[in-house]
């Protein structure tokens, strides 16, 4: 019983986390914030 619970808990946590990371908005958010930060760095370094 204990090992079944242990297995289910591990699967639940890993599953929810992978599910979150696989959502398109995670990539969109990273891309949006990295893009904004990148633009700033480029402008500061004298780029176009």
């Amino acid at each position: 019983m204990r090992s079944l619970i242990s297995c289910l808990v591990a699967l639940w946590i890993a599953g929810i986390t992978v599910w979150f990371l696989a959502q398109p908005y995670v990539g969109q958010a990273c891309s949006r914030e990295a893009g904004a930060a990148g633009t700033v760095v480029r402008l500061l370094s004298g780029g176009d």
Partner: protein
Amino acid sequence: MLLWLGVLTGACACGRQIRTWLRATGEARCLEVGYDAALGLGVLAYLVLGLGLVGLLYPWALALAALSLYAIGWRQIPERVRWLREARWPAGRLESLLWAALIACGVAALVRNLVPPGGDEWDTLVYHLTGPKQFLQAHRIHFIEHDHHTNFPFNMEMLYLLGLGLHSDRLAKLFHLAMYLLCVLALCGAGHSLGRPGNGAGVPGAVGPAGALAFATIPAVAWEAGTAYIDLGLALYGLLTVLAWSEWRQGRGRGWLVAAGLFAGLALGVKMTGLLVVLFVCGATLLTEAWRRQTRGAVASTLLLGATAIGLASPWYIKTYVYTGNPVFPFFYEVLGGRGWSREHARTYQEEQQSHGTHAIARAVAEGTYRRMEVGVGAQSETADASASAAVVRALFRRGDWPNAAAALVVPLLEVIDPARFWEQAAVPCIIGPLFVALLPVLIWLRPLPPTLKALLAYAGFGLFAQTHLSQLSRYQIPFFAAGALGVGYGVVHLGRLGRAPRAAGWLSFGTVSACLLALHLLRATAALPTALGVWTAEEVDAATFESHGAFEYLNAHAGPKAKVAVFGEPRLYRLDVPAEFADRFHNTLYPYERMRTPDDFLSALRARGITHILVNPRYHPGVMGPGPKDRVARFIDALAAEGRLEVAFGDPAEQRTTFVLRLTGRE
């Protein structure tokens, strides 16, 4: 920064002195700082309110109010200095890593506070800073008839007023950052206090910092830490109320019950939904004392708690009653009425509050147009969403919308799948992350839980349930995330009890998600860095990012001393120095649109209110003097412009891109 640190130090000393008088002391140091500073800042907010009510909102009086914190707490200062000297970096590697991440969170938020508020900091520009600015200009707190928000309880805004009066909007914003940092410290300290004998002995030191990191990296929380909203203030006072109440429950003296009442009163003075924490602790007192068959004691303790909280918050509600005839204006209008409001306004307001979350999803599913919203993109794609996640959502809403009573069960899961439905715009701060859904249910197998943790989790559950009824915007849930975060920390640290696999899954999940969300927070701060360091001026940034910048500049420079502006589609008036009022029909009843039949009626209404200029943001009020849907106001303005009774003073209405200004010509 120095002014801010000076005020916080005074607040700590003052708060400590009050707790000494209450005999409610003796805690982990981080938590002590949270209690003391929060209490001191509460005292300061009420001092500023007092100055505002007697018409003394001048910089010298505000400085005296801040200095009076030192006058109250000067005896405590040497002890606090000794504390600082004795502070040590945590010994364990894990704790060190968590603290380093927390410091990174704080620094990133600090950078964003060194930048004046931008166009996306909506409510900051609508009323959190605009209300205090107008009070400062008048040197007193007064009724602002065009903006109902200014009748809300304003504890946080009193601190912003102090910041504006003593320095700038950056100092004002720093007070919300203070709430964020104090939440983090309180969670760290609360984790430590879980390990006290009688409250769960043997709790490792990483619980608090892990919980604090789970809270601090939530993008909604991290974003709010960089602007002058109020939700983190409510989160702090709610958290401290439950922690102080838990101290009293564990038999540490009646002073803690009074302290809990004070914190609950301060929460109720930050926002009306602070009533949830008052109801929670009063209900919990009655139930737990009655369970111990101490009926008389239950009633006495509940009365003491409730009376302290409501008594402390009452000045705000009395003020609102005097101004509007309704102490909780504009809510409960059908029962309590209120000045400058109507049944239509009340209905529109309630519909807007109820338009988010499960209600929005249910509508989209019913119309067959449901797809997960994209985040941080210009326009939403219209292609079908055939993913398994969307299928799960469609299945959950197959039978229509969830009743509010049951929606709280699915809201946390839906916030992982489609968080933009729980925010006003599909912007990055809408993200909540999966840690609460992944780790809180696991606590069932980690019982017995420490009493303080049980109290916090009960408050988080009660708050989430009640808030789901009121409105499902995820930023309104921030106070309950703060309380639930300690459960996340406790869960991840104790998963080893269930075996190696859950332990590994827990830390992997916690580490990956925290790192990802911390990266988002740091990237956002990077974008603000040039302005914070003065490479770009705030003017330049505002001009490039805020569509009403040019119109405000024009009015501030050219409108003249007798100008008054009627504003359509642009409530973010913080940087407009000319007297102005919201003229859109859903804001107030100043303009009797239901009685207007002709453009002349509209013009007469404008003149009756002394209006000289009209400002229109076509993004939120399209169709005025250009293409787009035309409501009655747009048709009136078009007709008056065609007759030469209105003329363009700034901008190009035909473009319908940036905010423009019209001038009343005086022609009959």
